[in-house]
């Protein structure tokens, strides 16, 4: 057999004169093709770059040669190396007059350059010229380039010409002009906003290709603004109807489906237009139902259309019959052996359960199979489905599964995704707070660095607020369990920073609250955390503040504080830290433990993190003091705005509202006047020293600065201190606001602030808990899978629907739809009359509904169905992929041929010339060979075309290749293997 082929190749050689490519190029391709490793390939390409750099700038390179160089540049970039040295030559090639060279030039430029590249400007002129060309192929080439190279700035240069081309006589040009306009719309919607009506016009184009292309921009437009296009519903429906009735030219058929890609896009558009619109949806029911019935469910493409139908049905206003049809399709998908179909089934199930939640139940086992499938893609899709059908009755099972999966994967992107979903579900449906905390622990432990910080704040708030108002016992139980779980976890290595922050905060607030653990035990643990995270200042800060809280609670409770040795050394270390924040906290700690119980209780009240901190912005509590000082001769306070000339401008905060201050000052700066501030200074120091005696050595300056502007709001004063930001705020506030109800320490204020910023989700959680607490998944005593099924699906019929997204209100009646659609329809009809008779197929009148006669012959007996018994059905289903081989008249011949082959098992001489195959090539032994081999090969793809028809071609090619020196028997025979065989 091989020998025969080879002889054929040799014989066929004479007829053709090679690929028109130089030996050099063929050698390059050959060596790249045979490269065994990336390193080898890189070596070849680097060598090629050197060669090309030399050669490409030589003078007087023949055009053909230059084209080859350009392709070699494309190779270089494709294989990941920089070919920018040759870009200019590609640009030059676009100026060429020969179409092939011009198009190659454009191709290379679009592959090399982004639309903001400097060289583009050199092409704009060429494109403009080419758009005016008489040769429509040149115009097409230019329009291709327009779609890739024109950016927002150059759109105006092209727009008028592109718009003119929308009316070009060649359909290929109209199609590309529409897409160019689409591109402009993508790049800058405003630039073409006045031209949007052109898309509507082109929808009625005589040429189905132009119509099909127009659906792309229309889809985008409708996605953004549904309401302006409701009038087109009738048109889209009628087009879809005609496509489904095979009114388009046969060349659009694919595997016997009439224009499936156009059908799919139309279904997508209808799904948008019918969403939540009963009236629009009612127009669609018939045609979608028809497609459901007509679709060939044995081919991939048929299933693709069916899937799109399901998507459409689950988006438009529900119709019981269609929902039923969709459910049937889904169950067929799920029962299929093909993983692809299972995947589509899971996806469509996720869409349909919004409409009919009960459908999930009948597929529970199939879903669980998919969940346990080793295929990651299928698994993820199933998790997506589970996410959509989670409710309070099954949340525990689902979230547990998700977490297990999350732990098992490494892909950070997906880990983040699934972690945030776990958090979302847990927050929404948690059956108990205890479960919630344990779940969050797991999420934090394994994906803490990936989840949003807000989640951590939410968790802290939940622990602080507990169930809410009344149930104190439950709250403290919750906290105890949190503390317990954290003490258990804290020893684990490499916990994420966010999680450690939560742990420190909770241990600080509640570690000793229930008396189960001693202060020294908790503080020891906290010191360990701080030591373990020597690089993480935030965690250290949380830990130190937690230590301070523990000590403060101890002091307030009247117990004697014995600071652990390690704590002492930690605090000492931190008080010399480079971080002013850590320093600050360390000094705070040292100061607090020297205070008496009463003072401490005021500074850090126990369990007060939920109390609001009231801030007296007027500092009215200082009034009596100010009065007293003024009586003693102090100068009255001058508001900052009036003080501008008196103080050094350096002392002013940068962001004062007055614009004048930002302008240049032309007069010389005044000398600073020391007596004014200094007097206030000494006076203002007193109150702070009274309240916080420990503070004065470290922070006299800050207190002074604050005190200089006592009547300015708190925010204003904090701006004054400029560089010592964190330091001042923390000490300043307790110092002069001690009369406020809850002067908790700086850090707890921090957290309180953090928590109060969070949205209302937390309160929703606690509500959800109360209602859902009683419901537990009922677990049956049966095989594991059934158990899982029951816990996943069991409660579905009696529990509440989760999302309200399925609610369909009839938003708007499209009363004018009928009237408007008349206009385009009549336009088309009149166009129809003028169509020339030279066109082979009758031009499809896309908007004409009246004509029921279908011109094309639909084979009443599908020839390929009959083949199923003879060949593997998966292969047979697609034998028809040469679209032309569809007519029923040919089928007997083919069947006869196939009927013979398995019986004889020998090369037959049956030479049947297929009229549909352009060349009329004889069937040779190759046919039998091909069909037999496909029948046996385990690895063949589900769709196969009738191969072997072109045996001659392959022989010629092989021979040619041999002649060029590329021998198939060398290293990489794969290069020669036909893709479709």
């Amino acid at each position, binding site marked *: 057999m091989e020998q025969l082929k080879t002889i054929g190749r040799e014989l066929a050689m004479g007829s053709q004169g090679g*690929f028109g490519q130089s030996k050099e190029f063929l050698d390059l391709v050959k060596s790249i*093709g045979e*490269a*065994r490793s990336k390193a080898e390939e890189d070596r070849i390409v680097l060598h090629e770059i050197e060669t090309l750099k030399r050669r490409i700038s030589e003078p007087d390179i023949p055009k053909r040669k230059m084209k080859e160089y350009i*392709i070699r540049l*494309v190779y270089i970039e494709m294989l*990941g*190396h920089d070919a920018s040295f040759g870009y200019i030559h590609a640009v030059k090639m676009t100026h060429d007059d*020969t*179409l*092939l060279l011009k*198009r190659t030039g454009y*191709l290379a430029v679009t592959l090399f350059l982004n639309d903001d590249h400097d060289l583009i400007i050199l092409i704009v002129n060429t494109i403009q010229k080419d758009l005016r060309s008489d040769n429509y*192929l040149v115009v097409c080439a230019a329009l291709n380039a327009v*779609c890739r190279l024109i950016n927002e700035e150059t759109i105006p240069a092209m727009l008028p010409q592109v718009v003119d081309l929308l009316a070009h006589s060649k359909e*290929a040009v109209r199609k*590309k002009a529409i897409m160019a306009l*689409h*591109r402009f719309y*993508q790049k800058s919607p405003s630039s073409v906003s006045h031209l949007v009506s052109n898309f509507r016009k082109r929808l009625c184009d005589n040429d189905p*290709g132009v119509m*099909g*292309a127009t659906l*792309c921009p229309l889809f985008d437009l409708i996605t953004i603004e549904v309401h302006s296009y409701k009038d087109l519903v009738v048109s889209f429906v009628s087009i879809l109807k005609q496509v489904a009735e095979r009114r388009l*030219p046969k*060349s*659009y058929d694919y*595997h016997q489906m009439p224009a*499936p*890609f156009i059908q*799919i*896009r139309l279904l997508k558009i209808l799904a948008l237009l019918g969403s939540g619109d009963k009236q629009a949806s009612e127009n669609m029911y018939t045609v979608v139902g028809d497609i459901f019935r007509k679709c060939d469910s044995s081919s*991939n*493409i048929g299933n*693709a259309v069916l*899937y*799109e139908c399901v*998507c459409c049905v689950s988006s438009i206003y529900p119709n019981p019959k269609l929902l039923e049809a969709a459910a049937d399709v889904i169950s067929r998908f799920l029962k299929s052996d093909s*993983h*692809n179909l299972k*995947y*589509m089934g899971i996806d469509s199930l996720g869409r349909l359960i919004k409409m009919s939640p009960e459908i999930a139940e009948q597929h529970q086992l199939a879903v669980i199979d998919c969940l346990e499938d*080793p*295929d990651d*893609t*299928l698994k993820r899709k199933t998790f997506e489905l589970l996410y959509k059908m989670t409710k309070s009755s099954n949340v525990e099972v689902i979230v547990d599964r998700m977490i297990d999966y999350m732990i098992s994967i490494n892909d950070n992107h*997906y880990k983040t995704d699934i972690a945030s979903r776990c958090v979302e579900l847990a927050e929404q449906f948690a059956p108990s707070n205890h479960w919630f905390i344990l779940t969050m622990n797991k999420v934090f432990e394994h994906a803490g660095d990936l989840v949003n910080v807000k989640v951590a704040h939410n968790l802290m708030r939940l622990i602080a607020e507990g169930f809410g108002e009344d149930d104190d016992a439950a709250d403290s139980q919750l906290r105890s369990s949190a503390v317990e779980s954290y003490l258990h976890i804290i020893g684990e290595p490499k916990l994420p920073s966010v999680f450690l922050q939560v742990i420190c905060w909770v241990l600080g607030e509640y570690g000793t609250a229930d008396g189960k653990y001693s202060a020294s035990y908790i503080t020891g643990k906290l010191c360990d955390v701080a030591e373990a995270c020597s690089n993480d200042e935030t965690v250290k800060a949380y830990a130190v503040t937690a230590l301070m809280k523990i000590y403060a609670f101890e002091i307030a409770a009247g117990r004697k504080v014995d600071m652990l040795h390690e704590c002492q050394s930690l605090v000492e270390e931190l008080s010399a830290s480079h971080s002013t924040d850590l320093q600050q906290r360390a000094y705070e700690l040292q100061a607090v433990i020297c205070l008496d119980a009463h003072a401490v209780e005021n500074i850090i009240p126990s369990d007060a993190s939920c109390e609001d901190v009231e801030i007296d912005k007027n500092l009215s509590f200082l009034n009596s003091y100010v009065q007293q000082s003024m009586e003693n001769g102090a100068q009255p306070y001058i508001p900052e705005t009036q003080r501008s000339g008196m103080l050094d401008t350096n002392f002013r905060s940068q962001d004062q509202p007055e614009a004048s201050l930002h302008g240049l000052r032309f007069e010389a700066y005044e000398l600073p006047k020391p007596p004014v501030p200094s007097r206030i200074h000494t006076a203002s120091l007193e109150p702070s020293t009274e309240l916080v005696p420990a503070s004065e050595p470290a922070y006299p300056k800050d207190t002074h600065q604050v005190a200089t502007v006592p009547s300015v709001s708190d925010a204003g004063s904090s701006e004054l201190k400029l560089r010592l930001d964190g330091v001042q705020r923390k000490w300043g506030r307790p110092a002069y606001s001690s009369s406020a109800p809850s002067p908790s320490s700086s850090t707890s204020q921090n957290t309180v602030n953090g928590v109060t910023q969070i949205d209302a989700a937390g309160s929703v959680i606690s509500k959800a808990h109360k209602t859902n607490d009683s419901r537990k998944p009922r677990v049956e005593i049966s095989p594991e899978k059934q158990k899982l099924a029951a816990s996943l699906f069991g409660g579905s019929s009696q529990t509440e629907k989760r999302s309200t997204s399925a609610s369909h209100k009839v938003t708007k009646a499209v009363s004018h739809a009928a009237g408007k659609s008349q206009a385009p329809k009549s336009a088309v009809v009149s166009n129809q009359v003028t169509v020339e008779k030279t066109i082979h197929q009758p031009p499809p009148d896309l908007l004409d509904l009246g004509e029921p006669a279908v011109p094309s012959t639909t084979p009443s007996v599908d020839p390929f169905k009959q083949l199923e018994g003879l060949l593997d059905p998966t292969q047979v289903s697609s034998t028809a*992929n*040469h679209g032309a081989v569809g007519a029923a008249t040919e089928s007997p011949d083919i069947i006869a041929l196939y009927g013979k082959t398995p019986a004889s098992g020998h090369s037959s001489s049956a030479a049947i010339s297929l009229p549909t195959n352009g060349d009329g090539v004889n069937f040779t032994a190759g046919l039998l060979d091909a069909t037999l081999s496909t029948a046996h090969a385990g690895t063949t*793809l589900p769709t196969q075309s009738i191969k072997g028809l*072109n045996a*001659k071609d*392959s022989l010629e*090619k092989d021979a040619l*290749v041999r002649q060029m020196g590329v021998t198939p028997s060398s290293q990489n025979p794969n290069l020669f*293997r*036909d*893709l*479709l*065989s």
Partner: protein
Amino acid sequence: MGIRFILMVNKQGQTRLAQYYEYLTLEERRALEGEIVRKCLARTEQQCSFVEHRNYKIVYRRYASLFFLVGVDNDENELAILEFIHLLVETMDRHFGNVCELDIMFHLEKAHFMLEEMVMNGCIVETSKSNILTPIQLMEKA
């Protein structure tokens, strides 16, 4: 957008054709191709032909030694893309006759021209083989 990129890669992971519908730098392309090729080539025949990658999906299909990989947005119909790949192969097959890896390598620009006819702005615009191939045939004659 729909289609973000189309790649042809052989089973050693070497790129045979690359067309991106959104601009990526050379480094980004290199990294992306490396990542997804590793992902897809590791899969078995029984597994789905779809792989999620970052925020999009890859639909792939193997023909002899060559993998066709198409990166699409999440709302794209995967099965349709799978058939689009087959349509592309059939179209190339009609043009080259028993198309093989070497045909694509020797006629890289023609494979690109076909793609240019079939996909614009990341959308499938033409599915009629004769419409796709006519301009290319005319150009050869010219």
